[in-house]
């Protein structure tokens, strides 16, 4: 499939060949352990629509493989065959906590829903992070076709994404009989039966494919961003099911203005496990009377909160706030129509039609926010992200897609971030214009020429990534282009034909009279760099014409000494090239030599990072470790 962003309802993951487009699979709307607390326990079922694909038992499809081995129980469970006609006909197996085959079906359904949301928003196929196999000489970076999912990998109140194993591992644990425990006593709690946890972990793996250096915690925001982004996708994906909100909206009646019910719903996410609790801290809390009340945003919290989950909660809170503003604006007219202009709803249950329309509006707002959040990833720096950078990416990406902000989405987002103190510290104003990443106008003539050479070479890429090619074929073409780019840049270093591209990109390529300590010099005497991603993006311009862009991620490393230990700091740049005009649209930079960033890194390395990273030894599973330190 070419990197074409189809309409809002299109999907790049759906096969065009078969008659079927969707596989319907029934599943839980809420964590089953939590549903016991809801008045809505009887209604805890929704239908997931995964793009149709032929499946082997497992299920094993094109993107994921579910393997149900439970080493702690010295047991394995037979794989479910979702292509079995009786299962297809029944929209999957019945939701059943005691049936491992249903668990396999459920993790598949939620993981595929998440993948589809990413492909839809990004307008291109998703590949898992490449595997570096040192032994294989000719194959320097190997294609990993499927993300592996272990629904019952271990006994513990946790779940994690393993970047090394390209796998999601879900834990389960006996609910504690301890009266001080938070869960209901008795029974087993399965993390693989929670939509939010599965979506959260799948998102970790998807984010890793786009921005792999975000697992390197180089400032307090980086791992916090990983966590917050995973929470955001889980939350808004969940809200994009109108059924999920229906019951809550019916309950809110006249209280719609405060939207506390939505907040309360969000707050209960992950409660059964005590994990994924960022939302609870971020949005509000139950007061002494047991009534939920929204939390007043604290503009100083960003300066004082460093623990990754608590810090991530600030970002989640900001985006959730923007969502509420957008939703409220979208339903204002509906409420007026329903109340003869008064805006005050009468006592008693809401009319069913109104409830339906409100739920649909809420679900649509959630789906929009989800798309905006995911698309922004292409506009993020390749390393060392801060929440301020993400705000700029959100705004720039949205301006590129929707130049006229009729619904004031961007105003809502900026406002919500500002109220929490999440903004770039180096800007004078927080207008849409100043938050928009700077364009490549500052390039001098030589720099422009160098960019044109690159862009020309890349012109073939969108054409060559064919629609019907396998993901592996496309992966190999993209990999080839990464190599090509490196080969184009390298011989030009030192020939003084890059112009001021170094300044614009923040990269250090040319040899210096006085060597930069801690940086590796390549064979050609310039400084080493890595072209770590090449991503095609096709969008529609303001006049409806197709615009082909390429996103290039280039990174560099430098070693510095902190308290006697050697630490790697990262620099780099995301270059967005316009293939039609052969120009540089944006250079989103993190200069590799930057004293301020070094100082910030040092404070972080000896402080919070020392705690969250545990021992001096390298952490093999950074995300797992992060969750364990929750």
């Amino acid at each position, binding site marked *: 499939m070419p990197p074409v962003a189809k309409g809002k309802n299109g999907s790049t993951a759906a096969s065009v060949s078969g008659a079927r487009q969707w596989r319907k699979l029934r599943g839980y709307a809420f964590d089953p352990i939590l549903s016991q607390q809801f008045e809505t326990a009887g209604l805890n079922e929704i239908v997931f629509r995964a793009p149709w694909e032929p499946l082997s038992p497992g299920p094993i499809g094109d993107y994921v493989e579910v393997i149900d081995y*439970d080493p702690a129980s010295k*047991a394995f469970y037979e794989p479910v065959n979702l292509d079995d006609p009786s299962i297809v006909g029944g929209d999957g197996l019945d939701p059943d906590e005691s049936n491992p085959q249903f668990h396999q079906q459920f993790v598949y359904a939620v993981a595929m829903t998440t993948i589809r949301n990413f492909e839809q928003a990004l307008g291109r196929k998703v590949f898992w992070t490449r595997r570096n196999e040192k032994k294989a000489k000719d194959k320097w970076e190997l294609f990993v076709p499927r993300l592996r999912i272990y629904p019952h990998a271990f006994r*513990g109140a946790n779940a994690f994404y393993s970047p090394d194993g390209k*796998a999601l591992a879900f834990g389960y644990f006996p609910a*504690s009989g301890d009266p001080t425990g938070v869960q209901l006593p008795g029974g087993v709690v399965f993390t693989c039966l929670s939509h939010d946890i599965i979506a959260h972990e799948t998102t970790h793996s998807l984010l890793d494919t786009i921005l792999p250096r975000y697992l390197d915690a180089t400032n307090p925001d980086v791992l916090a961003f990983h966590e917050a982004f995973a929470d955001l996708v889980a939350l808004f994906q969940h809200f994009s099911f109108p059924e999920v909100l229906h019951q809550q909206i019916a309950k809110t009646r006249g209280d719609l203005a405060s939207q506390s019910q939505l907040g309360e719903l969000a707050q209960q996410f992950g409660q059964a496990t005590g994990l994924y609790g960022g939302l609870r801290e971020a949005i509000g809390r139950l007061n002494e009377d047991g009534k939920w009340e929204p939390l007043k945003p604290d503009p100083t919290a960003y300066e004082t909160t460093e623990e990754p989950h608590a810090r991530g909660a600030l970002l989640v809170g900001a985006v959730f706030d923007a969502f509420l503003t957008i939703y409220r604006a979208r339903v204002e007219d509906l409420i007026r129509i329903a109340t003869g202009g008064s805006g005050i709803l009468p006592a008693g249950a809401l009319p069913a039609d109104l409830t339906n329309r409100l739920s649909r509006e809420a679900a649509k707002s959630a789906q929009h926010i989800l798309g905006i959040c995911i698309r922004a990833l292409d506009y993020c720096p390749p390393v060392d992200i801060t929440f301020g950078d993400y705000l700029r990416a959100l705004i720039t990406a949205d301006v590129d897609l929707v130049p006229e902000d009729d619904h004031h989405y961007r105003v809502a987002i900026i406002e919500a971030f500002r109220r929490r103190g999440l903004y770039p510290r180096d800007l004078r104003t927080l207008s849409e214009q100043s938050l928009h990443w700077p364009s490549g106008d500052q390039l001098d003539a030589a720099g422009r020429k160098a960019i044109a050479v690159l862009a020309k070479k890349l012109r073939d890429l969108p054409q060559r990534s064919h629609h019907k090619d396998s993901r592996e074929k496309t992966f190999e073409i993209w990999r080839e282009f990464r190599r090509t780019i490196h080969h184009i840049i390298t011989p030009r270093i030192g020939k003084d034909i890059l112009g001021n591209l170094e300044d614009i990109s923040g990269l250090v390529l040319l040899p210096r009279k006085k060597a930069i300590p801690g940086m590796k010099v390549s064979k050609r005497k310039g400084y080493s760099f890595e072209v770590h991603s090449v991503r095609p993006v096709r969008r529609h311009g303001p006049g409806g014409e197709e615009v082909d862009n390429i996103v290039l991620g280039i990174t560099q490393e430098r070693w510095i000494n902190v308290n006697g230990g050697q630490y790697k700091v990262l620099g780099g740049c995301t270059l967005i090239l316009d293939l039609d005009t052969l120009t540089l649209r944006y250079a989103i930079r993190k200069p590799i030599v930057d004293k301020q960033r070094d100082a910030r890194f040092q404070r972080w390395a000896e402080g919070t990072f020392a705690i969250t990273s545990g021992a001096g*030894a390298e952490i093999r599973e950074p995300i797992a470790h992060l969750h364990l*330190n*929750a």
Partner: protein
Amino acid sequence: MPRKRKKVVNGNGAANSQKVRIRTYRHGLGDCHLLAFTKPDGSAFHLLIDCGVVNRTRDPGPLMTRVAKDIVEQTGGVLDVLVATHQHTDHLSGFKQAEDEFKNNIKMKRLWLAWTEDPANPLGKKIQDQLVRKLKAVRTAAKKLASLKGESAAGINRVLDFFGAAPGHASSTQAILDALQKRKETEISYHDPGDTFVLPEVPNVRVYVLGPPTNPAQLKMTTPSKSKRQGYEVPEIAADANGLVDALQPNDGDVDTELSYPFEKWHRRGANTMRQNKFFREHYFRKGQSWRRADNYWLTCAEQLALALNDFTNNTSLALAFEFIDSGEVLLFPGDAQVGSWLTWADLGWNVTDPNGEKRYVRVADLFPRVVFYKSSHHASYNGTLSGYIEGVGLEEMTHPNLVCVVPVDRAMSKEMGWDRTLPWTPLLKRLKEKTRGRLVLTDHNEIPPDPKTLDTLSKTERERFAEQVLVTDDHVDYTL
């Protein structure tokens, strides 16, 4: 390490008006503090807090024997009180390693322990029994991990180093405590937070017991967090980890582990038949796919359990404050208490009647501004000292102008054990330095003790006072008040 005794700081450690001398030994990563209070008749009342060094220390026998010999010399062979704060080797190992000295040459009149060590306390007993079972499980996991190709149990072992030998072994912390409790001449007492009493034979000193907390949830709370409720949820689950423990210790007495399995028997296929199963042969055991197998994931969870048990044990520390009734000055010895313990102290209150008949109501918030000597809890780890926290009473409330802090650390050993980033934690050391205005003494041999002359944030009088108060030799730090 040169053994020659040399004075680093000049001072007169034995002034006549001395109320107490605190000797902290510089023997490695571990705690050993000898307090000599002056009795009304001028003689000394000797109170020893802990005597241990971490498991990895090379040749610990002679090292701890030298410490014990000094204790004999200083006390004349009589300890009026021994305080054993909690069951970690770096606080207890010396009693075994220097057994001869402690057995033959030292008479212990009293032994003070935390309520959690009291065999007659049902909750204490339950806690100890569970700790033993969970530790066994962790050791099993470490063994299994070590036997897997490409795996290492280093992560777990660096935690187990604090626990030392397995229960049942003669040098286990439990065995050491048992031996101490069996000594005929010793009067044993177990202490609850909220206890207070005047130090026997020293009527000017009142002892306050701060921890360990009696609420199991607080005992389990080990990580700083902005909110109390959020803080202990996760560590609590991790600390319980009953499913994992059942898997690692399936045949443990009368424990029924069947309910720990996630599914009924008929769903479970034995892992030993996996290779005969077509699906698993093709997808799990396929050649070249071993890098993504999940055999070890469940075992690595045991590291988190080990950490939780370690922190939990720290929280069982008997935390004490000694107050001089006449001057109000306070010495704080929290053991290795962590955040969960510290947070409970703010709620404590004591109605006391002093020997002179005066009645007072005392809270920790009254004691902390009077702390003049703080033995840093848990080797200045990030969660051993309450600081920068909204709730509770902690370091920020220690506002006395004469505050001195002694930190038992050995950073070379921390590095060897993989704890160098947090034991000690650099930001806490910086804050301690600020709070004490430089009067921070690390027992580390790599650390040059602060030279009073260079402490320019102190007044001349304060510099002189500090020079007189603190004497650092190769073997110990002496602080006098």
